[in-house]
Every structure is written in structure tokens, then in C-alpha cells.
């Protein structure tokens, strides 16, 4: 008799507790959802995404190292020491990062304008050729003047080489991916021609070997170095330009219009923006920064131009790797600084890893490729997330955050 109510009580209690639990669950789920969907967590995830992507790539690399019977910890330690271990190593990392950053800045501009510039290699070469010509021609002028002129010339040379595909895209509807790739090939042959013919080092012209290279620049024309390392002024120029590009993109009408055209050319057109003009401008500026990268390579690192017949012989593939660095920096000029340092470190460190733990160089290449693939995929995934967020916001009846009025630029909808 006494049992019944207690059973009843028990069952009620159980049901109650279950209800409480489910309510608790709901509350927790809602909170989690809120936290997960809240703006700053999303931002944090977005910001850390490239880092996760790199870690994932290194993890896959570790598996590959294990297959080669190499201790991955030892290998990665060698990579780290090679890139950051000594001040000299770090300087070398920065030297490698400089052209990546400069090319990447141009990529930030063009990709924001929805123009895919794959012509960084060619633009670097042209910039370097023009700058070298300035350095070898005006030998009587003072050093600071020639350096300034050469940098400007490199900037202009790259601008022309980027501007041509820009005009072709804007006014003739030629796909810029294909035309910039072809402009690369043209630039390489132009370099091979000039360095074997008109611009060849007079000393080499007399020798039988005829190494295709230009004469050495005068000592006073070299970019100042931070003795005893090879770190040169170009790195500082690149960082200053990163800030300027940030200002250009988010604090000027010009930058606003480039980004507006990139996000929605039709709307921009109805808003009275001359779309073709800004397409040309985006590619032109993008090429200009690559041209400057080429010029700083000559005046800061090599002091002459030399060719092995291919583009990467001169650029070290910076014209391509700069794209990856910019994507890694989420197409934001300031974030591109650490991104390009990281890639510079990877390039320098991988070499020392190869030396220290004796891994085949193919693995180093594969490792670089892995990082590239992971970073690019994560960037695409991020953009998809962002789009979904925007569409969810729209469905909820909220207006999406006005993309162009935000004070924190790297959270804006991507390219």
C-alpha cells in the first residue's frame, strides 16, 4: 500500500529529472550553438584556420617521414632551427619572405577585385629587367637616386606587364588566368633573349662560356644591408607597403571600388562605377607589386640578373608562392606579413631539414605542396562558411553585416 505512492513519486521524479535534463540539454545546445555561431568565435576559427591547415599538412608530412624511417620530430626540429635558430637563419627567412610579401600584396589587391593574377612570375621578371637596366645605365648618378629610380622602374614595368592582361580581360573578355600564364612565358623568353644578347655582361660576352647574366651592379647601388646578415632594405619597404595597401583597400575610394567590383560587378555598375577601369587597375597594381619584388631581388640579393632558362631560376617561384602566402594571410595585407614569413621559414627550413636528416628533396617539395593544398582548401572552406553565415543571417530577417563599413577588414566576405 505504501509502495504505490512512492513508486508514483519515483516515476514522476524520474520524468521530471528527464525533463530537466532535456531542458538542460536544450539550453546547453542553444548556448553552444550561440557560442559557435557568434561572430567572434567564427572569427577566431577563421583566423586560426590556416594554422590548423599547416599543422595538418605537417602531420601528413610526419607520416611520410616515418615511412622514410626518419624521426619526424628530429626533422621538424631541423626545419625550425634552420629557419629561426640563429639570427642569421631568421634573417635568411626574412630575405625569402620579402618577395613573397610583395607579390602577396599585389595578390591581395587583385583577388579582392575578383581578378586572378597568376602572372606574378612574369611581372617579377619584367620589373627586374627594367630595374637592372636603370642600374646599369645611369652609373654616374648618386646611389640613392638610382635605387629610387630603379624601384620605381620595376614598379612601372610590372604594372605594364600586369596591365596588359587587365585590358584584355576588361575590354576583350580574355580570361586573365590564361593570359597571365602566357605573359609569364613571354617574359621568360624576353629575359633569355636580353641576358644572352643586348644585356649580357660585357665580360661574359668575350668569354667562350657566355653565361647568360648581366654585369654586376655598382656597390653604391645596392640596397643597404643589416650587416652581417643578408637582410636588406627591401624587407622594410615591403612592410611599409603592406600598411599602405591596407590603407588603399579600406580607407580610400579607389580601394573601395576595387573591392566593390570584386564582390558584385553588376551592382557596382548600377552604382555608377566604371567596372572595366577597376579591373584593369586591380591587375595593374597587382603586377606593379610583383615588379617591385623583382627589382628588390636584383638590388637587394643577387646584384645582377642571371637566367637558367626558366622563370623559377630567377624568381625562385616567388610569383606563385606569393599567391599562397596571400591566401594564407586571408587576402589581408597586414596578415600577409606573418604569412609570408611563415612561408619563407618553410622554404629556408626545408633546405636545412634536407641537409640535416638527409631526406630526399622530393619530400621537401611534397611538403610545400601539402601546405599549399591544405591552406587553399581551408580558405575555400572558410569562404563557404562565410557565405552560409550571411545567407542564414538573411533568412533570419537580419540584414547581413554591411560588408564595406566594417572597421575590422579581415572578417569581410572574401574574394
Amino acid at each position: 500500500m505504501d509502495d504505490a505512492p512512492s513508486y508514483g513519486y519515483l516515476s514522476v521524479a524520474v520524468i521530471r529529472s528527464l525533463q530537466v535534463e532535456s531542458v538542460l540539454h536544450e539550453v546547453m545546445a542553444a548556448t553552444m550553438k550561440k557560442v559557435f555561431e557568434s561572430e567572434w568565435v567564427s572569427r577566431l576559427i577563421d583566423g586560426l584556420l590556416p594554422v590548423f591547415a599547416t599543422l595538418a599538412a605537417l602531420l601528413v608530412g610526419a607520416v611520410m617521414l616515418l615511412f622514410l624511417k626518419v624521426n619526424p620530430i628530429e626533422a621538424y626540429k631541423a626545419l625550425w632551427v634552420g629557419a629561426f635558430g640563429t639570427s642569421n637563419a631568421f634573417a635568411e627567412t626574412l630575405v625569402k619572405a620579402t618577395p613573397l610579401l610583395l607579390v602577396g600584396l599585389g595578390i591581395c589587391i587583385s583577388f579582392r577585385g575578383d581578378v586572378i593574377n597568376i602572372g606574378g612570375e612574369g611581372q617579377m621578371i619584367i620589373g627586374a629587367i627594367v630595374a637592372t637596366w636603370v642600374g646599369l645605365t645611369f652609373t654616374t648618378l648618386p646611389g640613392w637616386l638610382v635605387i629610387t629610380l630603379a624601384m620605381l622602374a620595376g614598379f612601372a614595368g610590372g604594372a605594364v606587364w600586369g596591365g596588359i592582361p587587365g585590358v584584355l580581360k576588361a575590354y576583350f573578355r580574355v580570361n586573365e588566368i590564361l593570359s597571365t600564364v602566357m605573359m609569364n612565358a613571354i617574359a621568360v623568353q624576353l629575359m633569355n633573349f636580353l641576358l644572352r644578347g643586348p644585356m649580357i655582361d660585357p665580360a661574359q660576352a668575350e668569354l667562350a662560356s657566355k653565361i647568360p647574366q648581366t654585369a654586376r651592379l655598382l656597390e653604391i647601388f645596392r640596397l643597404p644591408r643589416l650587416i652581417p646578415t643578408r637582410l636588406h632594405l627591401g624587407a622594410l619597404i615591403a612592410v611599409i607597403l603592406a600598411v599602405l595597401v591596407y590603407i588603399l583597400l579600406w580607407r580610400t575610394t579607389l580601394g573601395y571600388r576595387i573591392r566593390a567590383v570584386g564582390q558584385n560587378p553588376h551592382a557596382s555598375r548600377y552604382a555608377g562605377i566604371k567596372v572595366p577601369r577597376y579591373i584593369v587597375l586591380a591587375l595593374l597594381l597587382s603586377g606593379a607589386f610583383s615588379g617591385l619584388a623583382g627589382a628588390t631581388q636584383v638590388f637587394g640579393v643577387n646584384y645582377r640578373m642571371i637566367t637558367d632558362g626558366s622563370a623559377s631560376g630567377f624568381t625562385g617561384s616567388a610569383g606563385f608562392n606569393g599567391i599562397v602566402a596571400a591566401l594564407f594571410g586571408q587576402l589581408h595585407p597586414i596578415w600577409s606579413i606573418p604569412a609570408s614569413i611563415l612561408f619563407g621559414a618553410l622554404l629556408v627550413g626545408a633546405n636545412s631539414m634536407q641537409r640535416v636528416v638527409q631526406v630526399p628533396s622530393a619530400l621537401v617539395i611534397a611538403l610545400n605542396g601539402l601546405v599549399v593544398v591544405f591552406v587553399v582548401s581551408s580558405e575555400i572552406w572558410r569562404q563557404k562558411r562565410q557565405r552560409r553565415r550571411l545567407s542564414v543571417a538573411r533568412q533570419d530577417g537580419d540584414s547581413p553585416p554591411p560588408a564595406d563599413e566594417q572597421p575590422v577588414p579581415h572578417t569581410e566576405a572574401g574574394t
Partner: protein
Amino acid sequence: MDSTTILIGLASVLVAAAPVVFAVMGETLSERAGVINLSMNGTILLSAMGGFAVSVRTGNLFLGFLTGMLIGAAVALIVAFSSITLKQSQVAVGFVLALVCRDLSYFLGNPFMGLAGPRLPAWPLSGLKEIPVIGTLFFNHDLMTYLSFIVIFVSWFWIFRTRPGLMLQGIGERPAAAYVRGANVNLMRYVYTVLGGALIGLAGPTYSLSVKAGWKGTISGLDGIGWIALAITIFGGWNPLRAAFGAYLFALLQWLGLVLQPSLPNIPSQVLQVAPFPLMILTLLLVNIGDAEWVERTLASLPEPTRRFFAKAFRAMRASPPAALGVPFERD
């Protein structure tokens, strides 16, 4: 130059174009299904290296060609997986693969640099070869050149004259409609991308075992071919016959460059080496110019006969891509 030299020269153009034909047909099939395989430049290099390496090691030509096709198919499978299943940007994935494959081919191919390898023997078709002019032009080559003729015709016939080909056009133009008609859009895209990749992969060994026999690393002269093949695909308007015309035109221009060089000593060799690239840009320009807004506006202001002439010319040159090219298919 007498007529025999010209005839032999033209025949050599057909041989030189064979790998480009394979690559262009592969890309056309893949893009017809809606998938851009942008990795072509790297794929050709990697399959050229792989095919050569396998042939050198085994002494077997067939295995070399098979390896090339497998490499092409494998790379295409990565493109297909990431673009169809993961729905990622085909351009980004393809471009990255193009770079990675190129670097890989140089590094993995290092031990095979400059080795003497087997070469596909010529296989004149006795009987057909004796026909004047035509015999020399078409029937005095090796197996791969004959195969390139067949591939052109078969791809054209398949796309435009068969029921599955019609379906292929459908999944590239309007995947939703093709789906309603019972096509498994994503599966077919996989099939055509991998098949196209295998054809692209066949281009590599055709170079390294026949047209430019051997592997010479960065100076093989193959870097850039893939990009040209991509431009030819666009020029060809995704039609195998027109694309084949583009491939032969390109080979003809290259041959003319070689032939003219001795008679034009003032022109540096680089000019002729580089000539295909501006020419390709020009063809892309001609193909697309009819769509440009300012051209339409200018045309409208021209007097009637001139306007009609230009409008017709632009329409003839025009090539529009499959409508769903590069767009992942989602059924809902």
C-alpha cells in the same frame, strides 16, 4: 624549298600535334562534363616523366604509355574528388596540382635525366602509304599519331552523334535537367573527368617516348604545353573537330617558326619560341571579342552591311563554354 620538303614538313606537323591533340581532347571531354582540369600542364610533365622512367626501367613501351595514362587519371581523380564530392574551387585545386605535379616531375625525374630510352618505332601502313601525297601525309607515322586521328573522330562522334554523348552535353549544360532525365550527374562527371585525365596523361609519354623522346628535366621544352592546350580547348569551342584544327594550327605555326628561322637570321630564336603565346592570346581575344560590351555598342553604330559582316564574323569565331562549367551539381 620543293614540294616534297613541304609535304614531309606538313606530315611532321601532324606528328608533333599528336600529344597536343590527346591533351585537348581529354580536356574537352572533361569540360563538356562540367569539370575544368586546370592541372594539365603539370599532368603532362609528370606523365611524360613517369612514362619515360617506366619504359627505361622495364624496356617496355606499352607499360610506359599505360603509366602515363594512369598518372593522368590519378591526377584527374583528385580534381574530380575535390570539385565534385568536396565541391571546392576547381580552379584553385587544379592550379595547385599543376604546380605540384610540375615540381614533382622535375624532382622524381632527376635520376632519369638524359638517359637513352626506348622510342616508339615508326609504323608505316603498307598499302596506304603508297598513295601519293595522302600516303606521306597520313600513313607514314607511328602508332600514337594514328591514334590521335582516331581519338579526334571518336570524341566528335561520341559527343555529337550518340545518346550518351547527348547526355554528356546535358550534364555540362544543364545538370538539373540531365538529372531529371535519369542521369547520375556526379558519377558521369567522375567518369569523364578521369577518362579525360587519362587522355591528358597519354600526351606525356607521347612526347617522352616519341615526339621529343627522352627526359631532360626543366629543359625538356614541355613546360607550357599544358597551358597552350588549355587555350586551344577554349579556342576549339569544346568541339573536338574545331579543337583539333586549333592543335594543328599551333603545330603548324611552330613548324613555320623552325623553318623560317634560318631565312630570317636577324630574328632571335626566342621570338619564334615565344610566338605561340601571343598568338594564343590573340585567338582568345578573337573568340571572345563578340561578347565585349563596347564592341556591341560600336557594332550597333555601324552602317548595316558592315555591321552584319562583323556580327557574322564574331559569331563564327565565338565559343561559349558549357553553361555549368566549374559549377558543382547539387540536387535538391
